[in-house]
């Protein structure tokens, strides 16, 4: 899932400073699960901002609505009917949600209420950790199911750097050394031989380094199918 955190209140106040009427849009998917931008968080932020802006002497009209998924047109389209009543949208979606709203509603300013932090999982109640960087060329099959791209501070592909000690990363004691984890798991699985091969330089063109990415499935495209059907009729 995508993990996000709410921005500091002061920053959010700055972002909405020019607006009189604000619609907070929560999202019912990832950010609900990580307690950052669901219906509950939207309601709390709404109350907080109403109170805070009133105390500052510029009380704003603030409402909240939460859609099931901010990153799909069909879930955000129904918002359009309400938008005339607002100067600005404060999105509590991830960065994708914010941009989906901005793209769909070109006349309406949209600002983020969250910082999108990573793709990961809750390892325990209240603790989330990063697991994937969407590098576009998955190597988990070589690294015992533990990703050094997302979890090694230096994204090493050939084993631990000299800063690994007692299972911890040199960058911060709270970070487990990904290569210690990889080593232990590979050893337990009897697959250490995989770690002895030299992994060549990674093809980063499949990652963000190749520019913004796009996935196209011709077999699923409606325009494509229409063309195909039309072609078949001819």
């Amino acid at each position: 899932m995508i993990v996000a955190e709410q921005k500091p209140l002061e920053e959010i106040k700055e972002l909405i400073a020019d607006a009189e009427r604000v619609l907070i849009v929560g999202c019912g998917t990832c950010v609900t699960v990580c307690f950052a931008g669901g219906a509950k968080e939207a309601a709390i932020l709404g109350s907080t901002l109403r109170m805070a802006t009133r105390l500052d002497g510029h009380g704003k009209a603030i409402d909240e609505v939460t859609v099931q998924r901010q990153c799909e047109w069909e879930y955000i389209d129904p918002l359009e009917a309400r938008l005339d009543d607002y100067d600005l949208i404060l999105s509590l979606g991830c960065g994708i949600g914010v941009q989906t709203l901005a793209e769909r509603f070109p006349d309406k300013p949209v600002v983020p209420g969250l910082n999108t932090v990573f793709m990961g999982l809750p390892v325990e109640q209240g603790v989330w950790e990063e697991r994937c960087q969407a590098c576009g060329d998955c190597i988990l099959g070589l690294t015992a199911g533990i990703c050094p791209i997302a979890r090694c501070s230096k994204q090493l592909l050939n084993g631990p750097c000299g800063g690994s000690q007692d299972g911890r990363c040199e960058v911060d004691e709270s970070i487990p050394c990904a290569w210690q984890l990889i080593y232990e798991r590979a050893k337990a699985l009897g697959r250490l031989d995989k770690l002895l091969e030299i992994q060549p330089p990674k093809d980063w063109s499949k990652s963000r380094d190749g520019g913004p990415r796009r996935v196209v499935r011709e077999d699923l495209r409606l325009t494509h199918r229409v063309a195909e059907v039309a072609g078949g009729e001819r």
Partner: protein
Amino acid sequence: MMEDRSNGYKSGSNLERLIRAGHFVVTAELGPPKGWQREVIERKAKLLRGVVDAVNITDNQTAIVRMSSIAAGRILVELGLEPIIQMTCRDRNRLGIQSDLLGAAALGIRNVLCLTGDHQSFGNHPTAKNVHDLDSIQLVQMVARMRDEGIFQCGEAIKGGGPPFFIGAAANPFGDPFEFRPYRLAKKVAAGADFIQTQLVFDIPRFKEYMKRVVDMGLHEKVAILAGVGPLKSTGMARYMRDRVPGMRVADEYVERMKAAVAGIPKEDKAARREAWRAEGIRICVEQIHQLREIEGVAGIHIMAIEWEEAVPVIVKEAGLYPRPTVGEAVLKT
């Protein structure tokens, strides 16, 4: 360099010639200044001239911006010393690294030490973006292919042939997982490393155990392993390295000895304490060199006297490693 290569040398560097001839080699580290003053390099170089076989020039060590290792390395070449430029994967991608290496070769630099690089969070630009396009093993392999096959990482030919580098890599026998460390060294050797410089050794039994495994794997016959040493400057430094530096192990014995060195000297007498500490630091370092020389597979030592280059000639002489041997043409033509 054609002449050097025709007699079988990979780079013709002094370090390579001495290692090939079977000498116990000595390298030291020179940290470039946090500024552009050439005189700083000249002053430090003077201390090391004739005392060591080659001099490592650190590359933004501990992620703190300093003068470029290649520029500082060129100054050493001009002064008649042999540099080992350090190259990290933190600040440059494969384009930047290869371009800088071609430039280094053109400037008469013949040794390169390939490193991952300390994480930028330790340095003076902690908000920087790191690169890590390659890791250190991939870097070793890339440089070896540049040299041996005359090709860039992409496979295209390097015009005029490959740059003649003697290729080094680092090893930390004290990092975890300990059992994997000899295998990681084996990967560096397979990638093409000619010499290895280790992390500072302050735990001789652990290092012996590591070297035993390395020798059992036959790696010492394929690569020259230089054990890292460095003089302690104070009890505080010893303690800090023991307790705070990830991937370092410092035996309590050394902390205790540094503490004992200033016993009876009043805290106010800072000059006397400094003197006593430094004398003991050098004493320990010299003892360690003698111990390390006895370990099978150790082909030399690498002295890291951080911001204390004055200690290097003293250590080399007291360890009985002076004068330094020469083999053939020791000074590189530029």
